[in-house]
């Protein structure tokens, strides 16, 4: 099985570069899907988010999720990059790239990784508000929890 590329880093990432890396792995890749998660300003409320993470477990958990996606959907390749530290509004937070022969597989793989990452990757976001105050810790959303329901367990062969 192809191993996923997983990076937990403070620095920004380059979507185009990461796509190029997966494009060149094989001439039998027909579809590449990327998901980029960005820091929203929530209608002008926020100036930044501070991302705290659990070093070690963050890498392990995301690697496990990406490996599951590669195996379950038969992805040709997968890359996940998650940033930590202070991230200004409009900046990148997370990148998922999936490569596959066909488009549905690439789409499903990327969505699967994001759904499980949201619920299981040990990251937490604290708000920095435009008025200079430190805001709340962002609450986990029920909708993220529910989004796991579409990935029903599959029988082992």
């Amino acid at each position: 099985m192809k191993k996923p590329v997983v990076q937990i880093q403070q620095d920004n990432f380059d979507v185009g570069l990461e796509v190029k890396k997966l494009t060149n792995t094989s001439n039998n890749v027909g579809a590449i899907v990327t998901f980029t998660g960005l820091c929203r300003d929530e209608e002008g409320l926020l100036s930044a988010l501070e991302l705290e993470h659990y070093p070690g477990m963050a890498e392990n958990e995301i690697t496990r999720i990406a490996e599951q996606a590669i195996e379950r959907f038969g992805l040709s390749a997968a890359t996940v990059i998650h940033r930590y530290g202070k991230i200004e509004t409009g900046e990148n937070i997370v990148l998922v790239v999936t490569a596959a022969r066909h488009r549905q597989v690439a789409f499903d793989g990327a969505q699967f990784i994001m759904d499980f990452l949201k619920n299981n990757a040990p990251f937490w976001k604290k708000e920095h508000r435009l008025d200079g105050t430190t805001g709340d810790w962002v609450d986990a959303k029920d909708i993220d929890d529910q989004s796991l329901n579409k990935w029903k367990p599959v029988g082992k062969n």
Partner: protein
Amino acid sequence: MKLVYFAWLRERVGFGQEEIDLPQEVSTVSELLNWLRSRGENFEEALKHPEVIRVAIDQVHENDLDKNITSAKEIALFPPMTGG
């Protein structure tokens, strides 16, 4: 054994990690949470809503409150994750 805390749980406890010797009467996740609550107001405040406390044993999620923890090296307590 190392205990680590993250996000608002870390802020309420007042520090991010500590080394502890597990008391003899503590051998499961739920016994650990009960014992921690007895250690002071900061822990009582941090752990007062058990439904939003997540636990990882040696960096792996653990949902079973009856799970034995006596051989764990590192236990992490944190709120529901909000990455991505």
